[in-house]
């Protein structure tokens, strides 16, 4: 007997490869000099700028804390950001703005093995478009990998001297719990005449009263 003419099953999506922790020795692969040896001619690190890069030089720094308030000293952090004009160095950004040839927008670093402090030397990004004609406040995307973290944790860093832009930012203003929004906003200070933005990240609430950082399912 003939089979009824129903469509063949649709080709299904393959499941994404499951994540696993980066483990305590993530530096071997992603920051071998920090692991203690020199192997590649060209290393990818935490300095995103050269002399030619356009924009205001800034330092981003902070620490990552676990639920006991102890710094996560084996964390590996990467950042991704637009240039000073708010343009990403990638063909998927179709804005009519120039890419800065001396700014890739990506950096990575490990927390210091003694103090847990992370540092990036970069520029302050310009505002980038959001969806539906809205504008996003200047921000830096961050992702955290470490022993004990099964799936990389995504978050964003915003700037505390961008009060109006932050108030209008689609993502920040979509966080229903207003008390949590501050966990994404870095504080500006000056050191040796250079601007430094500090953002501590808390994987859970800490005993000193620190609030858990907002993490994103991007």
């Amino acid at each position, binding site marked *: 007997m003939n089979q009824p003419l129903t469509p063949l099953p649709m080709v299904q999506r393959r499941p*994404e490869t*499951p*994540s696993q922790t980066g483990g305590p020795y*993530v530096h071997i692969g992603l920051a071998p000099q920090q692991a203690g040896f020199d192997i590649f001619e060209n290393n990818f690190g935490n300095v995103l700028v050269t002399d030619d890069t356009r924009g205001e030089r800034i330092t981003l720094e902070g620490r990552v804390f676990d639920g006991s308030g102890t710094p996560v000293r084996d964390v590996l952090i990467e950042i991704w950001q637009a240039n000073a004009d708010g343009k990403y160095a990638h063909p998927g950004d179709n804005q009519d703005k120039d890419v800065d040839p001396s700014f890739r927008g*990506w950096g990575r670093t490990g927390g210091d093995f003694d103090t847990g402090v992370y540092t990036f030397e970069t520029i302050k990004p310009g505002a980038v478009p959001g969806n539906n004609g809205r504008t996003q406040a200047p921000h830096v995307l961050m992702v955290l*990998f470490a022993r*004990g973290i*099964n799936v990389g944790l995504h978050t964003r860093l915003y700037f505390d001297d961008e009060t109006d832009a932050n108030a209008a930012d689609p993502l920040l203003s979509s966080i229903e719990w207003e008390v949590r929004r501050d966990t994404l906003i870095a504080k500006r200070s000056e050191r040796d005449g250079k601007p430094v933005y500090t953002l501590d990240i808390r994987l859970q609430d800490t005993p000193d009263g620190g609030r858990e950082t907002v*993490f994103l399912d*991007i």
Partner: protein
Amino acid sequence: MSIAGRSAYGEFVERDHTQHPPALTPGYRTSVLRSPRNALISPRNTVSEKTAPLITARELGELDNDLILNFAHGGLPIGERIIMHGYVRDEFGNPVKGAFVEAWQANAGGRYRHKKDSYHLAPIDPNFGGCGRMLTDDNGYYFFRTIKPGPYPWGNSTNAWRPAHIHFSIMGDGWAQRLITQSYFEGDPLIEQCPIAATIPSRDQVRSLIAQADTANDAPFDARAYRFDITLRGRRATFFENA
């Protein structure tokens, strides 16, 4: 850029968390104090999440994907010579071109070249570094050669041993695809006992991390081959712009 009138840079299909480990997995003890207690927040993709850094071939060295030679100081490393290869595709089967694949691992005895590794009973191999990197070609294909890593004891419990594994980091075409994972080896009995592998909720997803012996691609009298394919998030087609 467009493919037959549709945007090639649409939003990513949302991550299916049932296919991944949850953050809190008490069997893997370190996760207890390092897992958020709040739920993740899901914003819509913007240009920020749909783009990613571009790594170019001229930034990489000729031996960067050859772990047998890239740290050899006057001799070859000791251990089982293997070739790892496979394809990086997205959920819809499209090749991910130019993906930046990085790999790191212990040596044949299970010892990592890392200043914090405490497994000093197994010695460092002076001719083995343990890391490599490469870009996928236009078919999403990657390959590297290395020494098969040994199992490794760790402090999760007093007699916990990791199966032989190679850590992988993949940077695809969008920040939302950023992935770190581990590949295991076919037939290793330690996989069943591993609390880290067991953080993955389904057995099929654990199986997807097991590199398969690929005897047809063995290099005779030289190296065995293992096949390990990787799937990243897929992009939804944007047939009409939002307007």
